[in-house]
């Protein structure tokens, strides 16, 4: 359930990328940062947060075990 919630949140974030509401807004936040740029800077931080949650709730725990198993065929080296 938590795994699905994280992936859903990531999908929502992808949709929120299209910030048409700031398209023609030249407001300068803190006097220097264009609001359209600030939005996407925060977007990057939220992306990092959501991927952290994905690591916690959707970690592919089987991958490591798979990597350590001997292959059916001779390895290349």
């Amino acid at each position, binding site marked *: 359930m938590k795994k699905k919630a994280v992936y859903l949140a*990531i999908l929502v*974030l992808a949709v929120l990328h299209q910030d048409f509401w700031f*398209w023609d807004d030249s407001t300068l936040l803190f006097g220097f940062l*264009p609001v359209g740029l600030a939005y996407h800077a925060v977007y990057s931080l939220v992306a990092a947060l959501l991927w952290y949650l994905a690591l916690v709730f959707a970690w592919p725990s089987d991958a490591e075990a798979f990597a350590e198993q001997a292959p059916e065929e001779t390895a290349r080296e």
Partner: protein
Amino acid sequence: MTQLIVMSAYLVLLLGLGLLSHRFFRGTARDYFLASHSIGPVLLLMSVFGTTMTAFALVGSTGEAFRAGIGVYGMMASWSGLIHSAIFFLVGIRLWAIGKRHGYITQIQYFRDRFESDTLGLLLFPILVGLVIPYLLMGLLGAGGVVRSLTRGAFPEVFAATQGGVPPWLSGLFICAVVLLYVFFGGLRGAAWANTFQTCVFMVTGLIAFVVISSKLEGVVAASERVLEAHPERLIRGEEITQLQFLTYFFIPFSVGMFPHLFQHWLTARSAKTFRLTVVAHPIFIMVVWVPCILIGVWATAAIMPDGSPVVPSGVPPNTELAIMVQKLTGPLLAGLLGAGILAAIMSSLDSQFFCLGTMFTHDIVTHYFGEARFDDRGRVRLARCFIVGVVAVTYLLSLAQPRHVFTLGIWCFSGFASLFPLVFASIYWRRVTRPGAIASVVVTAAVWLLLFQAGDYGGDRGYLFLGMMPAATIFACSLVTLVGVSLFTAPPSEKTLNKYFPRKQLGGAAVAAAAPVAGG
């Protein structure tokens, strides 16, 4: 002259680091090509980030923000933060597990085995090499422009044609030589160490550049207000970027899933957990590097010198805006340091790409077709080194041709890689994908890419869109539809192959080794 001395000192330092890494070389091919799967979280983060951030990120983003405004960040950086991490998490970790288990070194080895097809390998090889070479050229073109601008006036008599700046043919030669030496001796460990050092350098110097340039422009507030008065269109997306163009940039960052050099970096990871830091920190690092570059590019549109002339005149050569800002607004020592930082960003990609191409020629062509048994470890390392020298020489010669805009060249290169993404994703998650589906998808991708590249004047038409969208969207869609359509109408892969990549789960509950979830047929 001071700038040149500082940049040269940086290159010598880098060379020393590469030679130092050679002392840790264990003498085996696995160590040379994959650093014996010993790379930890910090080195993986820095090397992956350094590899993905190129001239495109620093020089190209500043130049593009100068022309198109702040929308460049949303198009490239914020999409990249989200999608790159998705790929590291969903594709990188899986490929690391498969690669480690089956002993792969190159992407083509994997695809060849996964689809039981030598033809697919032969088909992919020229495409991947053909796409990496423009990527390499981006680096060299960017570096040439930066060094020329930063050293302008240093040698007025020797290099009169470039207003006394070191010409790109000479700086390119020097950069190629340095990268070649540390990769030649240090292998992928050398590249990872150098990338880590270079990533630190370009992040720190980038922030210093931002602080110094903004103070020279009387502070961040004054710099932005000047833009608001003179060029308010640079602070919005407005007419410069269409909604559809902005949306369809979504496809470009998928290129990361098919970069052959990144595949090799992933395989160096010590464990799956090593990826965790990269997945989380990558979007933050992108923000730290890109936001200052975009602001500097936007400020450049309205920045003026004390005599009233613009700091960056309109019509300057492409890719030189950042260097001009640094050169005109800072002292020679700082300009040299910042130049070193820009070179660091560029070289941290060049090394992995040079190394990867050498590895591909060695493993995907020579040892594959002439027999692995004919080459011992030392023979393979020697062979790879010869190929690396050849690749560097060819790339250098190509860079002497007339440059295109770094940003435009990059978009086409990334579009090609991105459109092959359905192939790698399906190979991991879809049991029903077939060899004919994979081959047809690659052929269609290459054909559509070539058609659109031609229609876009081979990168010459900087604003080229197809149906109002980025060309990558169309190529990606064609690739995906072909892959799925042909796969559904052809025989599924052999059970033996499926068991190798999609192991069954044991009766009784415990998974034997399910590296990939079972999806589809």
